[in-house]
């Protein structure tokens, strides 16, 4: 529509050259549509993609590089023993409905998230909080049961954004936050619109308005970008098409890293995967580079454990599981499966899973493991694999930042139950000293790598295709977010 107006205007004054009008709106496409608009209640990442930093803000936030910076809290003090955080809130902040954002709202948001009946998808973030006290309207004190080196990081998650009791009832369909953009419209199945918040407490964004569109089909995504229907596509689903965009001066391609550890999820409680030798055999059967080249057309970094390679605490453990089919066959024989076995491989929709699944099936077949491939839609995958744990193998990318803690939860869908690891995570949570934390994280990475809990494949890369004039988009995805605060058009 905008294109059409511009065309009509140009034609009316008899000029076909691009008009000098400054562009102040953008159409951004992402793959998945959010199921609702409540980041504090829903687990879907698409909610954060649309709303994080745009509509909702937390006490702290991630910046484009994944560092934790100030959010609604302008400064904070941590008590000597590391258990009391005193946050000083920004002054003059209002929600989009005009109500004031103050310490009461922070208390409300944190208490709501950690309540018994809370539906927050990441309740673990708030688990250590014992008390939230309002000191004065701009000061709030959070008391923890023990020191937590991750607390400021936890408060930066999309699940920990500050909401208001006045607008909480309709948050799923009408999100009211404190961010630089206000929610204006959501046409389900098509688009979601945001408009600049004139009363924003921080620096005003360059864009007047933004439209999110949801295009999951790779072919449709390619067509939409090529036809310039969208100005930017965050998380472009077809890596094979990127060279074409790179060669086209109309577009720019940004390839960044994500927090997505793509793993061959293994059901650790289902025989024969309860046998470590079998899991190790699977790990040696996998040729990571073939998967990265075949499924992702070269985008992605091999990983040997469940940790992001760009994180300073990452330890390269690829040597634990090099591609070695002979070793895999020997291990299978040692485990009593000399003739191999048959298992299920359940794949969600993204191409890393569907294509990667075919490649892994071929690699496993090579060592004698037959897989029955089932392609599932996301809803089915959540039901069958994630909730009912009815699977042998699956492929999925775990995109939450710093999520090695999931291995301490024996009820998590891959059902890894190791008391040593759980004790290590307890210790990690109680450690605030950065060096001590790095040591513990290194130990944790080694334990799961040497236990061959899952097949560790690669760190998912994210590709953004944008029109050449768009600037300020995040290259990396330290959390699921399309932060439009700093986005503008080049003159």
């Amino acid at each position, binding site marked *: 529509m905008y294109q059409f107006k511009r065309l009509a205007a140009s034609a009316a004054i008899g000029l076909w050259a691009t008009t000098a009008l400054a562009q102040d709106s953008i159409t951004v496409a992402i793959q998945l549509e959010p199921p609702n608009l409540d980041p504090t209640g829903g687990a879907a990442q698409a909610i954060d993609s649309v709303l994080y930093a745009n509509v909702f803000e937390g006490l702290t936030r991630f910046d484009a590089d994944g560092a934790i910076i100030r959010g609604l809290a302008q400064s904070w003090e941590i008590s000597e023993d590391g258990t009391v955080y005193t946050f000083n809130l920004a002054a003059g902040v209002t929600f989009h409905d005009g109500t004031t954002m103050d310490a009461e709202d922070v208390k409300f948001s944190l208490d709501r998230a950690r309540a018994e009946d809370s539906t927050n998808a990441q309740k673990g973030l708030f688990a250590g909080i014992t008390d939230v006290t309002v000191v004065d309207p701009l000061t709030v004190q959070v008391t923890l049961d023990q020191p937590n080196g991750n607390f400021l990081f936890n408060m930066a998650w999309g699940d920990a954004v500050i909401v208001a009791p006045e607008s909480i009832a309709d948050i799923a369909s009408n999100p009211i936050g404190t961010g630089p953009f206000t929610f204006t419209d959501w046409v389900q199945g098509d688009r979601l619109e945001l408009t600049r918040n004139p009363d924003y407490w921080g620096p005003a964004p360059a864009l007047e308005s933004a439209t999110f569109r949801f295009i999951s089909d*790779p*072919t449709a995504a*390619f067509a939409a970008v090529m036809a310039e229907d969208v100005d930017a596509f965050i998380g472009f689903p*077809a890596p*094979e*098409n990127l*060279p*074409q965009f790179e060669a086209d001066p109309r577009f720019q391609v940004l390839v960044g890293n994500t927090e997505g550890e793509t793993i061959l999820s293994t059901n650790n409680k289902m025989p024969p995967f309860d046998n470590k030798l079998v899991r190790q055999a699977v790990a040696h059967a996998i040729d990571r580079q*073939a998967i990265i*080249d*075949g499924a992702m057309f070269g985008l992605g970094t091999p990983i040997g454990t469940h940790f992001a390679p760009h994180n300073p605490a990452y330890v390269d453990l690829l040597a634990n599981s090099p591609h070695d089919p002979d070793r895999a066959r020997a291990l299978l024989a040692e485990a009593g499966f000399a003739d191999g076995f048959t298992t299920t491989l359940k794949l969600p929709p993204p191409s890393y899973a569907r*294509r990667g*699944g*075919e*490649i892994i*099936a*071929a690699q496993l*077949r090579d060592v004698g493991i037959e897989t*029955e*491939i*089932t*392609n599932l839609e996301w809803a089915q995958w959540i039901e069958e694999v994630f909730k009912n744990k009815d699977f042998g193998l699956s492929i999925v990318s775990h995109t939450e930042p710093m999520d090695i803690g999931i291995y301490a939860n024996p009820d998590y869908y891959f059902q890894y139950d190791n008391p040593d690891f759980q004790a290590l995570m307890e210790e990690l949570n109680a450690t605030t000293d950065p060096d001590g934390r790095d040591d513990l994280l290194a130990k944790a990475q080694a334990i799961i790598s040497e236990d061959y809990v899952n097949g560790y494949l690669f760190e998912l890369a994210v590709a953004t295709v944008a029109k050449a004039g768009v600037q300020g988009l995040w290259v990396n995805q330290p959390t699921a977010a399309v932060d439009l605060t700093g986005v503008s058009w080049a003159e």
Partner: protein
Amino acid sequence: MSRNLIIGALLSLFFLALAALSFVWTPNDIEALDIPNKLQGPGGANLLGTDHFGRDILSMIMMGARTSIAVALVAVGIGMALGIPLGLLAAARHGSLLDELIMRGNDLVFAFPSLVIAILITAVFGASAVNAIIAIGIFNIPVFARLTRGAALPLWERDFILAARVCGKSAARISAEHILPNITNLMIVQGTIQFSLGILAEAALSYIGLGAQPPTASWGRMLADAQTLVSIAPHTALVPGFAILLMVLGLNLLGDGLRDWLDPRIRVARV
């Protein structure tokens, strides 16, 4: 013999031969992926190029022909095996409650869009080649039942049937010994047409991921896989696309040609 018949027969035989050959020989093993060798154009070491996993497309086409033909053949078999007896029965008991029941049952199946029901069946019972066969087969039943009844009804009025009845033959024997041989030509022609529709249906189901599952090769899934590659490696889509086109064209020409050739009235007119 018409030119259509010859062209159709040659095309159909060509694909049948490819499928038969795939049992003993294919240029490459399609289960072995060769990723560094992906998306090679046609004409090199691989006659029709390679796909996104470096598999030889010619080998995939041969194995895919096997899947398509097997699915379509069994589906048509199901349709004939159940549809023809039902049609004969309805014709023999013309006007009875049974006839009414069979034909209204057929109408019921006909009333549903076939592909939608096929999707439903594969969604409920899981996506596999076997379920695709069943789904396509079910929709072939009313086609053959109706055609059989329609062709058998006028035969029942003929004198030679009356003679058979006077001799004391049962309706079942008359249907089998006198009616069936007289409608065989019609069934062969319809079978060919249904066969081509079966190939299209298998390709459609596989294209949306509900047909044969990997690593079984299927033309429809080759097309689906090639979808995002069209602009960089057009041969990955063109080859399976043309395979489907030529096979279906061949079967349709064959069906048309057979009808002209087998239909006594037209044959007499031509002579």
